[in-house]
């Protein structure tokens, strides 16, 4: 990628001007380019591409396509049928043939005309693509769960900060689904919250599905990417929402199972309710008794977040209601009433989005610590500043995993 050549984006960022002949823009200015009373001029639109257009990716894509201030120009997927279908959708929306499709996300990211991307690949790709996007000067909306390992979060945050990128995680549910608890909690009506419970699962498991004949046109090597090699099986790479063995979400090489898949929502919601999104737990206490296994996460401010505590409901709060605290305004999306609008707004204003990657990564840490505790069947201490398990060589082995060549962070 040549960085010396001034990109459209560079030009627009410095002058705020519209299309101009001096810089090689065609003299034929379409009405779409000029904008009309309802649609901003091309120069004011955010140019976007999408990577991974499965179930969630399709929903995100549609959200961005429907925005008048976004021009969606490219998509990438390792499935040919998805590329064909997606191009038809996008071209049909704009009534042109301009959408370019890619099998390799690096080619999409190398385009200098693209401002931002949304990523909805399986989880094992999130970190690599997000970091590469930041290196290429793109802002990123990355679906949840944003990370697969503990090491990935800090690296994604660092890349975002290094290059001044807006990187938003996914999970519209954190702000939207738990208002019955969020509003009174932030209003101080629970008093000091002592504990909150989250019920979520299952844990991820190893995938040992048998090989199948490949009946779809999919770049299997690219689908696997940094994950260990395994034979094609339609359930291994299915994007269905099942976390019970019928999709990649179930399997530890690609996902953290329900702990991360739905944990992104529920742990995200719980930490939002308790206003600890900026913190990470310092200890995870593992319990295994006649009532089953559950965890207690201890936060530096004294909060205890429990996972699957016996007889406790999801989002069940134990507070001190007689000791009301001063209310605080509830953080919310900017620029609209959904997380996609919040992202686009922040792309324009360069603010941190509601689910900034740091907050998203902190939520994922809860899931990952839990998975490790359950796998090792014991308690763990966690040093958030050093991002390691102090004095615990065995647990530290789980902070990351070697990626399949040629992929690396």
């Amino acid at each position, binding site marked *: 990628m040549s*960085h010396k050549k001034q990109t459209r984006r560079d030009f627009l960022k410095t002058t705020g001007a519209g299309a101009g002949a001096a810089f090689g823009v065609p003299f034929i200015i379409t009405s779409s380019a000029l904008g009309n009373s309802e649609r901003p001029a091309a120069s004011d639109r955010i140019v976007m591409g999408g990577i991974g257009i499965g179930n969630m990716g399709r929903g995100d894509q549609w959200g961005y396509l429907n925005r008048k201030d976004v021009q969606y120009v490219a998509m990438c997927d390792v499935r040919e049928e998805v590329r064909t279908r997606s191009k038809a959708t996008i071209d049909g929306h704009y009534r042109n043939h301009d959408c370019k499709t890619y099998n390799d996300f690096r080619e999409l990211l190398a385009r200098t005309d693209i401002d931002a991307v949304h990523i909805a690949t399986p989880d094992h790709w999130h970190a690599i693509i997000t970091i590469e996007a930041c290196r290429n000067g793109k802002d990123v909306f990355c679906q949840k769960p944003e990370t697969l390992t503990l090491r990935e979060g800090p690296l994604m945050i660092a890349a975002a900060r*290094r290059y001044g990128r807006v990187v938003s995680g996914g999970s519209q549910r954190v702000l939207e689904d738990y208002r019955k608890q969020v509003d009174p909690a932030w209003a101080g009506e629970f008093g000091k919250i002592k504990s909150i419970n989250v019920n979520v699962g299952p844990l991820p498991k*190893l995938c040992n599905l048998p090989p199948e004949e490949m009946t779809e046109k999919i770049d299997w090597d690219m689908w696997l990417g940094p994950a260990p090699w395994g034979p094609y099986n339609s359930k291994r790479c299915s994007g269905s929402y099942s976390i019970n063995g019928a999709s990649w979400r179930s399997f530890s090489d690609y996902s953290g199972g329900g702990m991360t898949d739905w944990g992104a929502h529920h742990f995200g919601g719980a930490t939002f309710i308790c206003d600890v999104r900026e913190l990470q737990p310092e200890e995870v206490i593992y319990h295994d008794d006649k009532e089953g296994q559950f965890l207690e996460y201890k936060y530096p401010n004294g909060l205890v977040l429990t996972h699957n505590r016996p007889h406790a409901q999801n989002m069940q709060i134990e507070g001190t209601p007689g000791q009301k605290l001063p209310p605080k305004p509830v953080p919310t999306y900017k620029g609209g009433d959904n997380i996609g609008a919040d992202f686009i707004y922040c792309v324009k204003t360069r603010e941190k989005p509601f689910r900034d990657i740091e907050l998203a990564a902190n939520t994922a840490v809860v899931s990952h610590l839990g998975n490790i505790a359950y796998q*090792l069947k014991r308690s763990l201490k966690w040093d958030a500043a050093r991002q390691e398990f102090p004095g615990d060589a065995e647990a530290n*082995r789980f902070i990351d*995993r070697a990626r399949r060549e*040629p992929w*690396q*962070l």
Partner: protein
Amino acid sequence: MLADAFEALKKFDWGTDLSVLSPIDDAAVTAHGDPAVSQELENRLLAALKESLSRDAHDYACRKLMIVGTVASVPSLAGQLGNKEQSHMARYALERINVPEAGVALREALGTVSGSQKIGVISSLGSRRDAAAVAPLGKLLQTDDPAVARAAALALGTIGTAESAAVLQAALPSANGDKQIVIDGLLVCAETLLAADKHAEAKAIYQSLAGEQQPRLVRLAATRGLLACARA
């Protein structure tokens, strides 16, 4: 039960019910804090790797060695680094075994493996933040293979020492392939140095990248870095 599981491992392949190996899974957990149990499990896994295992079974054994492997596992795992089908999962274990011998094995493999496997070895050295690998990785910045050069730049950045920064800086003017990645590596080094309170070194890197001749994104990163230095 464990013996049965290891017998089952010899025939294990994709599609086999994973429950036949659960005694090994359990042993890998109960081995924690019990060196004798851990050593026995490791020995069994290493012995299994000598058998003619399916790829799946081989990978499984490596997954367990990731948990219980020690210096004793290094020779076996190192021996697989050049094998296209085994290399990744050998690194899956080796990369996470925190003994100097694992680093030595990976560094030595730089000279013996090629192609994608070489890139894998480079990335594992980076993930281990192996300071002793800086010199050989530095040489790879000039290799004709742009993918290897890129991998080396990323790894040097991850290692993040003043030495790796110096190597990257020296290579920048004549960097083969993707110059942006060399710069990215330098920026990562600067961040690591700053986090280690080495302000002057970090600032020097950022200053070197803040000039007008640099692409806009690089100048922006340098500006942000200089601000961070000023705050520190």
